[in-house]
């Protein structure tokens, strides 16, 4: 072993890991008690000027988890992980690749568990017989004739020694993904009225405009309710346009976003307007007109000269579920009727027959996220679970069988083995093997 540089040893130590994890867990508590990401005057109102200043100077507010000191702690954890792994991996690799047929007899004799018995025959013949018998029960054995006798060796799960390192690397992968996301991605939002489109979203917090590089249009938004009045779904029909042409369409709901060119649109909120979209179709000549009209104002449809208005509405809060429509074709008394939001009805007038539909106008609130690091984060998560399963539930098991010539035509045998984890389980496996190995 070469002499270790003290700085290297410091960063390679598990003590430092325990210390960093402990400090990370205790300081994390602060940001769960002091609400994060509020405006500075909010903190002054809540905690007073003096405390608010102290919090701000310690970076407890407004965003402790991205402060310099907290990210430094995470960086320290990463350096610790990297140095610790580099420090140990060569040794682990030597153990995986070790020439186990060169293990000296003295070491074999000092191992537990052990099993000894005797067989008649020639050393290397017995060796081949036992190797075949071990092979038949799933332990592929190698054999070497040495000066002091014949040694058989079989192992399982040598590579499982790497499980812990997969877990540790996965943490680095996740944090790398998070860093990429924070540097190259953004979180923004859009309030998009139905039928309109935009190329620009506004980042959260600073409200800086970001250009999406294409247009997103909200064709349609609707809310469904359960019978008890709770909202069941918020759905926006979105279209993506490039150079004025629709390239893709999707109806998004919460938990099912639309992704285009690495930018994902999430359904996050909505805003009802006091405008209504009406469509009137003359069923006699097929002429149809759609118009957006304000609440409680009579409107004349430009092509047909028909007049229509929403005179009252009923619903929850700002969302109308049914509207009272006033409608006339200037031929007799105006028609007055109730119509459910988004539905249509047929209106019989003296000469003509019309289909009228009405819908309240909404703006859909979209969360816009670009996160080029997300795949690394997910790969890291997968690696972590894979590594944890290996680290917790598998072990490197080794079996040696040493055959020594006792007298002419008679050999004494020593079987021994080790496992790096779950020794009790290994003892049982070993016991099992001793029962199945030929003894005479």
């Amino acid at each position: 072993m070469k002499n270790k540089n003290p700085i290297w040893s410091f960063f390679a130590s598990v003590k430092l890991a325990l210390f960093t994890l402990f400090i990370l867990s205790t300081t994390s508590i602060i940001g769960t008690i002091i609400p994060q990401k509020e405006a500075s005057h909010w903190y002054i109102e809540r905690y007073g000027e003096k405390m608010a200043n102290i919090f701000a100077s310690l970076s407890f507010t407004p965003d402790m988890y991205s402060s310099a000191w907290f990210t430094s702690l995470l960086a320290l954890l990463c350096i610790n992980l990297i140095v610790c792994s580099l420090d140990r991996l060569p040794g682990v690799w030597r153990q995986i690749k070790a020439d186990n047929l060169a293990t000296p007899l003295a070491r074999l004799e000092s191992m537990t568990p052990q099993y000894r018995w005797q067989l008649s025959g020639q050393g290397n013949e017995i060796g081949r017989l036992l190797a075949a018998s071990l092979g038949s029960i799933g332990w592929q054995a190698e054999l070497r004739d040495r000066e002091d006798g014949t040694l058989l060796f079989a192992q399982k799960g040598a590579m499982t020694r790497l499980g812990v390192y997969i877990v540790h690397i996965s943490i680095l992968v996740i944090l790398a993904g998070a860093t990429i996301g924070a540097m190259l991605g953004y979180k923004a939002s859009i309030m998009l009225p139905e039928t309109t489109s935009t190329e620009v979203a506004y980042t959260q917090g600073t409200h800086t405009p970001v250009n999406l590089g294409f247009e997103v249009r909200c064709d349609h938004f609707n809310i469904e309710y359960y019978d008890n009045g709770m909202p069941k779904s918020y759905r926006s029909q979105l279209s993506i346009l490039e150079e004025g042409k629709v390239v893709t369409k999707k109806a998004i709901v919460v938990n099912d976003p639309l992704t285009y060119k690495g930018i994902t649109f999430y359904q996050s909120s909505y805003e009802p307007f006091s405008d209504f979209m009406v469509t009137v179709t003359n069923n006699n000549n097929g002429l149809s007109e759609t118009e957006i009209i304000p609440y409680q104002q009579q409107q004349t449809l430009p092509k047909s000269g028909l007049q229509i208005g929403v005179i009252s509405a009923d619903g929850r809060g700002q969302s109308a579920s049914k509207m009272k429509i006033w409608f006339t074709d200037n031929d007799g008394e105006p028609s007055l009727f109730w119509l459910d939001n988004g539905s249509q009805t047929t209106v019989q007038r003296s000469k003509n027959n019309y289909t009228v539909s009405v819908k309240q106008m909404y703006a859909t609130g979209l969360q816009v996220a670009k996160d080029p690091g997300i795949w690394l984060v997910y790969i890291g998560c997968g690696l972590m679970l894979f590594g944890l399963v290996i680290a917790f539930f598998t072990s490197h098991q080794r079996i040696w069988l040493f055959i020594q010539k006792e007298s002419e035509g008679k050999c004494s045998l020593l079987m021994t083995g080790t496992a790096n984890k779950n020794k009790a389980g290994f003892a049982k496996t070993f016991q099992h093997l001793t029962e199945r190995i030929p003894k005479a």
Partner: protein
Amino acid sequence: MDSSQLIGITTFTYLFSTILYAAFFIFKSDRLGSIATIFTAAAFLIQTAGIGLRWLESYQLGIGRAPLTNMYESVVFFAWTIILIYLIIEWKFKTKIIGTFAVPFAFLAMAYASFAKGITKEIVPLIPALQSNWLIAHVVTCFIGYAAFAVAAGLGIMYLIKNTSETRQSTDNSSLLGTLPALQVLDDIIHKTMVFGFLWLSVGIITGAIWANSAWGTYWSWDPKETWSLITWFLYAITLHARYTRGWGGTRIAWLSIFGFISVIFTYYGVNFLLSGLHSYGSS
């Protein structure tokens, strides 16, 4: 018979199981032990039926969703998982006495679900944000983890009691505590239970992150509940490292299993009631 009646019955049967295990612990009668096990297993089946029925009822109401989405349902599932893990340990390690320290947790959880103020037992439909299979995966995996940590903490308490009594007096096998499993055995079961819990908590945090990402576009927002689950995860990571690389064991690990579980409880209840955040759905 509806699901809440079945689940209500379970509360009392777990109380009775607790008493039976306590009686077994005190009188050391093997018959009492077998009765306690049979009784607990029966209560577990009733609870399973109750949870299944609740699922069915939600379909009859036209809502159709797994019974895992509010405080009441998650606490009931938590108790169910504790008993499941306990029964597996009893079967695997052939020791009944642990029931005295594990079953009360299930009873307390059920009592909380049944009697605490402000917990609604109604089957309400899911708001849009909660309509996700990732959410179900998240709740199930987290609670398996939590239940394992509860059992580990129960074993930790058992370890500490036995350890104090052993250092005070010479071990007397006829004494009350003499019937407890040997300290090494306890230490080993505590470790294995924590490892099991750690794995599930990891899956729970990851599925939660995937859910958050599909609902809001952020897999991690340092919301108090997320942060507390990470704190809990760190605590158990510290415990595993201390044991694995520094050779900690016995009393220290027993204490850590208790501290870890306090952190679990805080993540689970404390955050809902004392702090604010995205997960506030749990408080209704």
